[in-house]
């Protein structure tokens, strides 16, 4: 079989290395002998059939609002995919527009797609920093936060990462708290650590691919030499970052 990833709005939401995530997902499948491809949706046609997983990246607020507008009547189809259990991975502003709502600085409330169980309030404060923390399986997880919104998870929704340093779902600086970052809820995964989160954190990539393989009924085991090498580099990159921040 061929696994098909739907990449939403790479033009509007692909500011800073977002494609690295799709590269990572496709390569990891290919390295383990599974065909994979990416189809793009930019609002100019309808969402194709036979989608195995959905990815949306981050970008500027203006780009995100344009993407939301271009999503138009395809919102229903996207919600359908989510409720059928197709795995979604969303980053930053892509996550925000797929949430319940975004409140802009002037108080205006923008209705999102309502797929992710969260809402966001844009803030004047801006976070811009390297971050590190641990996921539910105690994997060291790192990335770069660059955002200005408070994202509130709905009650009972679990964050993806607990941070030791940096900025999580709030863009405000915190004092001594362990900020929550991202969310995980069934087939939905989200993070605000922009750019190439997955190649640098292959445990998250494999967690997502496990969701995809369960939904689309194929078996995925990552035992390739290529992944072993890439992951050893990524591990060193995360260790370097966390040691530097912990100093």
């Amino acid at each position, binding site marked *: 079989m061929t696994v098909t990833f739907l990449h939403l709005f790479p033009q509007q939401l692909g*500011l800073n290395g977002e494609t*690295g995530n799709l590269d990572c997902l496709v390569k990891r499948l290919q390295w383990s002998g599974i065909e994979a491809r990416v189809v793009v949706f930019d609002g100019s046609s309808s969402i194709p059939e036979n989608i195995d997983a959905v990815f949306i990246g981050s*970008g*500027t607020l203006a780009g995100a609002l344009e993407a939301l507008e271009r999503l138009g009547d395809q919102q229903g189809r996207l919600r359908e995919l989510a409720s059928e259990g197709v795995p979604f991975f969303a980053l930053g502003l892509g996550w925000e527009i797929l949430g319940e709502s975004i409140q802009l600085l002037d108080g205006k409330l923008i209705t999102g797609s309502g797929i992710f169980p969260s809402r966001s309030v844009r803030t004047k404060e801006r976070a811009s920093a390297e971050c590190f923390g641990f996921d539910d399986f105690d994997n060291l997880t790192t990335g770069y936060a660059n955002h200005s919104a408070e994202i509130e998870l709905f009650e009972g929704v679990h964050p993806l990462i607990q941070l030791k340093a940096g900025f999580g779902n709030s863009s405000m600086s915190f004092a001594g708290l362990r900020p929550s970052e991202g969310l995980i809820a069934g087939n939905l995964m989200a993070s605000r650590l922009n750019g*190439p989160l997955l190649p640098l954190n292959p445990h998250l990539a494999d967690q997502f691919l496990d969701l995809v393989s369960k939904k689309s009924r194929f078996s995925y085991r990552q035992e390739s030499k290529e992944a072993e090498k*890439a992951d050893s*580099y990524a591990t060193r*990159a995360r260790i*370097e970052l966390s040691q530097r921040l912990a100093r």
Partner: protein
Amino acid sequence: MRLFLAVLIGKAIRVVAKLRGGGSALPGRIALMIEPKLIQKTLGSLAHGAIFVSGSNGKSTTTALITGTLASQGLEVFSNPSGGNMPQGIGSAVIGQVSWRGNLSADVAVLEVDEAYGQVLSPFIAPSWVVLTNIQIDQLNRFFEPDRVYSMLHSAAAAATHGVVINGSDANLVDLALELVDKQVVQVSVSEKALSKWPVGALAAPRFGKGEAVNSIPVAVQVLDEVDGVALLALGDDTFQVQLPGKGLHFAIDTALAFAVAKQILDESFDVSAASSAIAGQETVYGRGEIAKYLGVEIQILMMKNPASLRATLVAMENPETEIWIAMDEGTPDPSWIYDIDLSRISAVRTISGSRAWHWATRLSYAGIPVSNVQPDSKKALSEYVRFLKENGKRGTLLTNYEQMMAIRKLMGYLDLESGK
């Protein structure tokens, strides 16, 4: 008196800093603490004022090209060195060139100005002309969104006392220029033919939520074509060829910007052929193809600052003689953008160094590009790479960020960081 003291102490620090081989911003920083009006007092009274050059990419090159162009017309030009584009760096350059009494002998200043500091500098020294190169994706960790760079450059341009020159192939700059209703604005236009051959040369930041702008800005210079480092430009009815400092449409645009501002200042007396031959003899700004010699080997240094500069560098890069060396450290706080670049021009990497080495190694493994050696320590990386080049009798290629370039040049014994010699 404060000016005298600032110059005195600044010059003293400069001597010490040069001996230590670093800290080019330090003399300026200290001198500005003593005399905050240092820049205004020394550059404020020049006959043609101060030209600010800003934008995401091409600032250093365009500054050097404007300097060379105006000098070829017989003007005495003061300029800040490559990369020293914040107030401290400009202050250091002033300290290096003023007399002990604080007098600066020049007709015009050409200043490379950091995007964020155009606004900060403008109140202290109003620019006569503002030249804007482009708005591209750059340093998002610091600028957050290209939209913010837009408003910073807008404020800088609005402070111009004479006028503004823009790269008209950049849609964001066209929007910006059209908003400057009471300013004299001219543009460099780029032909469809040139743009179609070099899409990377004019890689603009995204522009969302705005309608199609009608580009009605008067054209000062046209870029008709670029072939292997030679530009075909048009000024009025005349077309002429110019040998560029390097290959690529971005060099043609930068040169056209230089000619455009010179034409605005000098009008009829602007001598295009003198300007063209001056530019043909101009050395590259360091980090843009400079060849460093060290322990009997040659290493070509190519700088990568942001997506557009890495892309342009890779497209223009001659086929490396052998495996390349990549160096990047925390001077690039968020290297995410390295995933946005097509790396297919790189066939093999010998060494990766700097604290971002592991990050790069991860990226390269997903691109399927072999890496022989990951060595975060620059000093060890340099000696290993030199040994490798010697064994193979090849010239090396170093792809590096600004901070690693400075560090590695220092390791190679290049002491005067200000002039790049």
